[in-house]
Structure formats: C-alpha cells, structure tokens
C-alpha cells in the first residue's frame, strides 16, 4: 500500500485539521456523483477507496499515539455510496433492459447498443438507455436528445432527470464551483431539484 500521507498529499507533520481538509477536498474531487454515468466511474471509486483507507490509517495511527493523552479516533471516514443501476428506480421489468444495464456497468457499449437496436418497443427506458450509451461514448448532443425524449415520456422519473441535469452540467452537488462549467443554474426548478437530490444522496457525509 502507498504511504497514506502521500495519498492525501499532506506532510507527516500536518495537523489533524489540515489532514481532514485535504481529505475532504479529495472526497469532493472523486465523489461518485462526479462520475455518474461516466465510463471511468470504476477508476474513480478505486481512488476513493484508496483515499478512505489512507485517511483511516492516518487517523488510527494518530489516535494510537495520543491514546495516553485521552483522545481517541472514532472513525469518521466517508462511506462511499455507489449508485449502481440495481438501485431500484427501474421497475420496468423487462429482463432485456436489465441485461443492457449490466452491459453498461461493464462498459460493453457496443453489445448494449446492438441489444437495444433489436428491440421494437421504444418506451422511456429505451430512450434513457440509448442516452446512457451515447453519453458514455462522449456523444453528448445525441445523449441529450435521448434523455429529453425519456424525460418527456416519463416526467416523474428522477433517474432520467438526474441524467438530463448531468449532461447539461447543472447537476453539480460536489463539484468545485470555481472550475466546473455550467451556465444554466438560474432555473429555480433545477435548483429545487438539485437540492432535493442532494438531500437524498448526501446522508453519508455529515460529520
């Protein structure tokens, strides 16, 4: 395992609060939400794991050192929740859609695409999955068109709406505001949506 201090990018003499700060910065950077529907999500979650382990290791070691002084470390590292596709929103049933989602999770885009191409029933889910494939390929214009259709057909579906906001760059709960691009934040409805989602997803990181 790499040196935990190196992973967090802090010196060995850094104070606990500095380490915490560095840790939170990194969590923001590699948070699963920043990699939603992203083909690199697996690499990001590995990175996240490494950061969590490093933070835990440092905090444990420091707690051990200062036990005589009476302080103890109560593990408070961020427990990453990964939003897999299995998470329930899609009760549309069709086993073919489930297969497509498995393909997507494994980054087998061509297989997913050809399976969808063979289906005649084109409902909201179909358009959404088509959009997913396009998004993972980096074909953003097409992805947006598909998401738009999916949202139009199933207006209440949060998963579709999140994907739509993601492709528009407005779904930015954990993004570094000084850098990330997104010019469409002035829509009151979007802000409410974003806050709602944030509230649902953010339970893991209160400290």
């Amino acid at each position: 395992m790499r040196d935990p201090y190196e992973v967090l990018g802090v010196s060995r003499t850094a104070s606990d609060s500095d380490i915490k700060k560095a840790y939170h910065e990194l969590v923001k950077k590699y948070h699963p939400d920043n990699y939603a529907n992203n083909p690199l999500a697996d690499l990001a979650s590995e990175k996240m794991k490494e950061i969590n382990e490093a933070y835990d290791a440092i905090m444990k070691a420091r707690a051990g050192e200062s036990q005589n002084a009476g302080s103890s470390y109560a593990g408070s590292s961020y427990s990453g929740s990964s939003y897999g596709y299995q998470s329930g929103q899609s009760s549309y049933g069709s086993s073919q859609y489930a297969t497509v989602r498995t393909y997507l999770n494994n980054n087998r885009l061509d297989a997913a695409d050809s399976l969808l191409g063979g289906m005649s029933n084109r409902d909201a889910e179909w358009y959404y999955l088509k959009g997913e494939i396009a998004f993972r390929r980096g074909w953003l214009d097409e992805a947006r068109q598909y998401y738009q259709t999916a949202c139009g057909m199933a207006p209440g579906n949060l998963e579709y709406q999140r994907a739509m906001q993601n492709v528009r760059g407005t779904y930015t709960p954990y993004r570094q505001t000084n850098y990330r691009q997104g010019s469409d934040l002035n829509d009151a409805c979007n802000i409410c949506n974003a806050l709602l989602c944030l509230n649902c997803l953010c339970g893991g990181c209160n400290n």
Partner: protein
Amino acid sequence: MFGYVRPYRDELRLRDYDRYRAAYCGLCRALGKTYGFRARFLVNYDMTFLYLVRASARGGAPCRRCFCPARLFRKKPCLCDEEGFAPVAACTVILCYCKILDNILDSGFFKGLAYRLLKLLYRRAYRRAAKAMPQFDAVVTDRLKALNGLEQAHSASIDATADTFAAIVSACADDLPGDELRRPMQSLLYQVGRYVYLCDALDDLREDVRTDSYNPLRFRFSAGPEGLSDEDLRYFSQLMDSSVNLAGSALSLLPEQSGSPLLENIVYLGLPAVFTAVRAGRFRKQSKVFPRKETGS
C-alpha cells in the same frame, strides 16, 4: 485545427508558465533533432498539451538551456525528455502532414500549389514518423477517410463528425502501457479533441455558409448566414461545457504530478476562454499568444 488548446495566462502560476514554455521549446527541439530543421516549424500549443498530458505519468524531466534558432543570441530553458517527446513529435508530424494534404484538397489552384510544395518538403519527415508510429498513422488515415465520407453525405450529426477527429486525438495515447493510465488519458484527449473540432466548426461556420461548404453545425442547427440563433448557441455552449466537465473528471484520474495545476488551467480555463472568443468572433483577431482575460461582457 491547431491553436485551440492553450493555457489561460492570467491564472497561470509563474512556475507553470515556465514549465509550459520549456515543454514547448522541448517539443521544438525534439522535432528538429529527429525530423530535421524544417520540422521545427510544426511545433504548436496543442501538441505541447499532448506532451504535458502524457508526461503526467512520467517523473520530472531535467530542464536545460538550449540553443533556439528563433533567438540566435540567447539560450532558452528547454525540457530534455527524449523518450517522452519522441512519440509526441511523431504524432505532430503525422497530423501536420495530414493537415497539408487536407488543405490541398480544400484550396484552389495557386494556394494548392503552395501546399503541394509544403507536402514535398515534409514528405520524408512524414514517412519517418509513420514508421515510428504505424498504428497511429493507420488510425489517422482511417478516421480521416470516415470524416470525408460524413462530409460527402452532409451528415447532420455533430457527434459523429466530431467523433472522427476526437478518435484521432485520443489515439495519441494508445501506445501507453497500463489500463489505469491509458483510459483516463484517452477519455481526456477524446473530449479535448471533440472540443477542438466543434470550436473550429463554430469558427468556420459563417464562412462555410457563405461559400456553401460543409459544416456539421450548419446542418445540425440549420444555421443561416448570421451563424447560429441565440437559442442554438446557448444549447451548443452547454454541450461544450459538458465536454469540459467530462475532460476534467478524466483529468482528475491522471497520476498526480507537479504538472496537474497547469493541465487544470488548460482544461478548465484555457478551453472555455478560447470558446468564448470563438463565439464572440474574436478568436482569429486575438493576439496569437495565450488568450487574455475578457474585457466587457
């Protein structure tokens, strides 16, 4: 399509600025060493970016003061990383040669003659480069053919046309070992390639409408002689923003080196600044060195 990928100077730290310049000079030097003096003229900002991206996986290279033919009496600091520059120099020569070939097809008789002369001048360098990176050369030839096909068919898909160019750019990282390193790099280069292609398309849009030439934006948004409508432009800008975000999330996954603030500057600030300038029709008129801060709106 060169010159769209640059750092944003006003937000650049001095050491990053120095490193960028040293990488630029290093690429120029590497081109000269391997492909002869005239290849030095092919050095450009975009390929410097490519080097910096690829160099993020390597340790720091030594910086020495080297002779510069553009400044006869002063030596300039220059990154000396033979191994790192070799593939980038080969990519540069191959891409520039293809650009020359493309220009021959696109221009009239007299201008075409000039490009034919250039083609002769760079033919030997191209052959050497193609020998050094045969797979990349094959990808470039193949994708440009696909792009030509789409142009002939007047494709209205900006994704498909941009994909051909983006695939070429992302192929610049194909030779790297290790999935963990290659995948984010390819993803980053893909989005940057897409961005460059679409910036260029927007830049040329009015001219293309005037001369009735192919431009993907023209068919996608049915643009008139005034360019895109405000609404289309807004939509298009959002697409470009998403590209930057995706490029950024890929950039975060590159191994961390001293170079990452410089790369972040280029991706998060340089690219959007260039796009804003293109959008306002100021890009070509702007000073050619590093985009400056916007004045006014």
